[in-house]
């Protein structure tokens, strides 16, 4: 029998929404994958593209849109979500937004393909 290391260990911690915004800013122009799930339900969708920008939205500028690709993306209101930051031992991190009404959104940088 051999012992295996905890190489795949993951940590998920709650963060302030501003920290999530900083995460987005740090990954502008990178390829990201956005996945929506409602755990326990056969429901979800995903999209992948370049993280173009993060902008606030009228009328009150309280909500934000995270633009992925040409114009579509993820939009959410900080009041409706809890933000969490996930991290793997490899150093890779991802964001998770949990809503009180069910769906969970994760955003992660797509690792560059190996040459």
């Amino acid at each position, binding site marked *: 029998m051999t012992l295996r290391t905890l190489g795949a260990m993951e940590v998920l911690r709650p963060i302030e929404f501003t920290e999530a915004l900083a995460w987005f800013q740090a990954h502008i122009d990178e390829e990201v994958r956005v996945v929506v799930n409602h755990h326990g339900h056969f429901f979800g969708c995903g999209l992948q593209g370049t993280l*173009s*920008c993060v*902008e606030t*939205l*009228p*009328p*009150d500028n309280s*909500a934000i*849109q995270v*633009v992925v690709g*040409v*114009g*579509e993306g993820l*939009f959410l209101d900080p009041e409706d979500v809890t933000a969490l930051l996930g991290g793997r031992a490899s150093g890779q991190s991802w964001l998770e937004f949990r809503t009180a009404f069910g769906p969970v959104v994760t955003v992660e940088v797509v690792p560059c393909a190996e040459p």
Partner: protein
Amino acid sequence: MADQPKSPSAAVSRARLLEGLLACEGEALRRTARANSANAADAEDALQDGCVAFLRFFEGDEERAISWLRLVVKRFAWAIGNNARRRGSHLHVVTVEPGELTGLEIVLADSRPGTAELAERAEALERRIALLDQLKPDERTTLILIGLGVSYAEIGELRGWSRTKINRCAAEGRVRLRELEEREGEKT
């Protein structure tokens, strides 16, 4: 040197862009607004508000314009719906005896104070402040600090007073305040 042709201002560019969007995608935007609104009038309002917001705020590339506008129209539709629900929650139906029934009566049961009530409250507050001025300084300080939520222990620390003194100031201050209020009431 020949004059360079002036480039259209950002506002003019946005207006032209919006015109093009409404020509090509107007129907789809209306459908989006309608799908997210309670009725056709609200949907039209949401679309109009979205267009105004586009003219004022849109700054992205042309290719992003339609998705931005679609999303903002949805948000306006939801905001209009939320406002209507909030207003609706203040309405309730008054039941009347069958003989008195001349039509469905709906009254506005708004729990917020009206202008007259607010004015009365402001006057009462002013009177109280004037009465507080007539208390002894330590009594006044004690009552104000208690009113601000400062604990007895904290008042003791702040002022260097014993608990007995604070109790006495608070009790005597309240008695004196009531007497002043009664005297004031008798005058009016």
